[in-house]
């Protein structure tokens, strides 16, 4: 069972590299596991079906335009696995076609994919899972991340708060595992940047189904101690939209609502970003979201490495991507590179309020001996990831 796919893979590999001298043809895979969306209070903003894929498609177009001038050819192979579908089979299928796979899947599926024997020498690019431990104790040498970790996002928010001197926080978090993970990350960033987390409460949707946010929130926030900022941890996008202006005290709201740190937002327009936004909207007919951006960046990272090395052999591409020579112009004003200790793409994090970018992390004053970008997320000195050590 296992032998056959490997043999097939080797043949493809041999084929791809034998033509590398004259022309280079690169297939990039896009693999997605569709997830069940939990019910939410409002359906105003459903997650678009093509989230992620649209970003990968734009990245491929960008690669192809460059490739045209260099006799490098790109194609995209897509496998989208429905809820309950066979993710593993789709993964094996894709890995038989290409060693470069952009993935939008939850953590357990990602790890299963990374640990497949066929994925041994592959380059998997995580564009959908923000779990910080995937960049830390659960890291894999064949798994790179273009989506920022939760730690990067919450660190960005913490830096902003420190700059504003809004250093007394309280938090309202949802009951889902994703919400808890965001809340944990917030607590970690608060510790890292010397912010006081005075009290945390869980928004309990099960307690009374007749409750509604409008009535409940003033009561729920009434006994919070005096604070500067109310953090909402609701990645599920369930109740958080009802929090601003419903609080007992007039305090700004941040986290997954109000002031939001994200890899990307439709309000990012500096540094040529307006052009990327326009190109994206033209194809997808909707604004670009963080997962779209991460998928775009993943496809572009492969393209950039192929352009500069003029080859498509995965070990050469991986070496180049993790080297000092690699950089991606990601429309956020700074060259974006990969952290060599855990495969995370360094990137600025815009902090936005839906109508405009408020600021962009890293902020002035947060210094780092290597690059200020490394003040966001897990730094080399604290990493628990050993898979990248040679």
């Amino acid at each position, binding site marked *: 069972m296992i032998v056959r796919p490997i043999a097939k893979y080797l043949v493809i590999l041999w084929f791809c590299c034998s033509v590398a001298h004259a022309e280079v043809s690169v297939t990039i895979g896009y693999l997605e596991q569709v997830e069940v969306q939990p019910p939410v209070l409002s359906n105003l903003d459903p997650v678009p079906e093509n989230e992620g894929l649209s970003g990968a498609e734009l990245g491929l177009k*960008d690669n192809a*335009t*460059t490739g045209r*001038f260099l006799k490098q050819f790109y194609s995209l192979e897509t496998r989208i696995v429905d809820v309950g579908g066979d993710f593993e089979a789709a993964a094996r299928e894709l890995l038989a076609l290409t060693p470069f796979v952009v993935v939008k899947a939850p953590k357990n599926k990602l790890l299963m994919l990374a640990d497949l024997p066929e994925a041994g020498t592959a380059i998997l690019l995580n564009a959908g899972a923000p779990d910080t431990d995937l960049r830390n104790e659960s890291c894999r040498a064949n798994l790179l991340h273009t989506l920022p970790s939760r730690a990067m996002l919450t660190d960005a928010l913490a830096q902003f708060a420190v700059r504003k001197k809004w250093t007394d926080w309280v938090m309202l978090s949802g009951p889902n595992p994703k919400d808890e993970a965001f809340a944990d990350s917030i607590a970690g960033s608060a510790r890292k940047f010397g912010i006081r987390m005075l009290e945390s409460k869980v928004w309990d949707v099960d307690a009374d189904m007749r409750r509604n946010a409008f009535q409940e929130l003033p009561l729920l926030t009434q006994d919070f101690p005096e604070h500067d900022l109310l953090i909402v941890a609701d990645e599920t996008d369930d109740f958080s939209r009802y929090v601003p202006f419903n609080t007992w005290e007039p305090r700004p709201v941040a986290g997954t609502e109000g002031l939001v740190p994200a890899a990307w937002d439709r309000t990012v327009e500096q540094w*040529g970003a307006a052009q*990327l936004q326009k190109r994206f909207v033209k194809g997808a007919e909707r604004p670009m979201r963080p997962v779209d951006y991460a998928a775009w960046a993943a496809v572009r990272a492969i393209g950039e490495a192929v352009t500069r090395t003029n080859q498509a052999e995965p070990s050469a591409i991986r070496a180049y991507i993790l080297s000092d020579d690699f*950089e991606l*112009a990601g429309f956020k004003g700074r060259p974006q590179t990969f952290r060599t200790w855990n495969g995370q793409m360094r990137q600025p994090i815009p902090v936005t309020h839906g109508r405009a970018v408020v600021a962009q992390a890293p902020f002035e004053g947060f210094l780092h001996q290597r*690059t200020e970008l490394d003040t966001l997320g897990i730094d080399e000195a604290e990493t628990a990831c050993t898979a990248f050590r040679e």
Partner: protein
Amino acid sequence: MRILLPAVSLALGLGLSTAAADEIWVSNEKDDTISVIDIDTLEVVRTIDVGERPRGITFAIDHSVLYLCASDSDTVQVIDPETGKILHELPSGEDPEQFVLHPDNRHLYIANEDDAITTVVDTETRKVIAQIDVGIEPEGMAVSPDGDIAITTSETTNMAHWIDTKTQELFANTIVDQRPRHAEFTHDGSELWVSSEIGGTITVFDRESQTEKAKINFEIQGIHPDRVQPVGFEMTKDGKHVFVALGPSNHVAVVDPETYEVTDYLLVGRRVWHMAFNGDESLLFTTNGVSGDVTVIDVAELAPIKTIKVGRFPWGAAYRPTN
């Protein structure tokens, strides 16, 4: 004095047609205006309403008209510099950002940022004579002094595209560092220089072979390399200096074009973008996007001497002699 006065008022009465001072014209990207700076007094003497999001700005070789990329109006406007009136518009393709006028004083090569196209327009017949497919987000435009080669650089494709102006076809594509922004041939035409904003470099190409000849890096003490982002640059005709705008580092670098070494860094306004010399190249005017002003640099002293407030997000600058 008494005799002079009527002459002065007469001059004022006629507008500025007989004013002696030369001018620097600055396009203000987020104000939809041009600020006209009087080079003698170093003050803004006129503000002209133009199309939406004005960026690329250049005069005809005889300075009879001004060409302006009104990017969001999707047109190139032709403006009478005496009156500031828009005479007519040229078809430019979508979202023209930057352009260059061929030495024949007739053909404009225009970068269409949203369409990955370079458009060639005949300014006399006002017709598009060619559209050339280039990389994504074309921006930097240059033409060799003899007019044989036009260059488009593309920001996301990270290339300089070499166009044969006789056939209007590409004959070479050369890779540069991340996000190329501006291109210029040296005055003798032997080299092409291309700045890369995110890469933080200038690549110098040999024109004959289209191969890389040198790479210039910039380093300013106390400023992180990521913020040192070369954008616009200008070369003096005497071949002594190249001035390079370094974007959000708020500095202009002075480069020796013989040795390719950086000899000095001059502090200017915030997010310095493009620049223009006056007629004898004794003064250099830099547009500072974020601070919304223009820094005047004394070229002999290599020192900034004045800051002039202009409109919001000044982008390009062009020199206009009035005598």
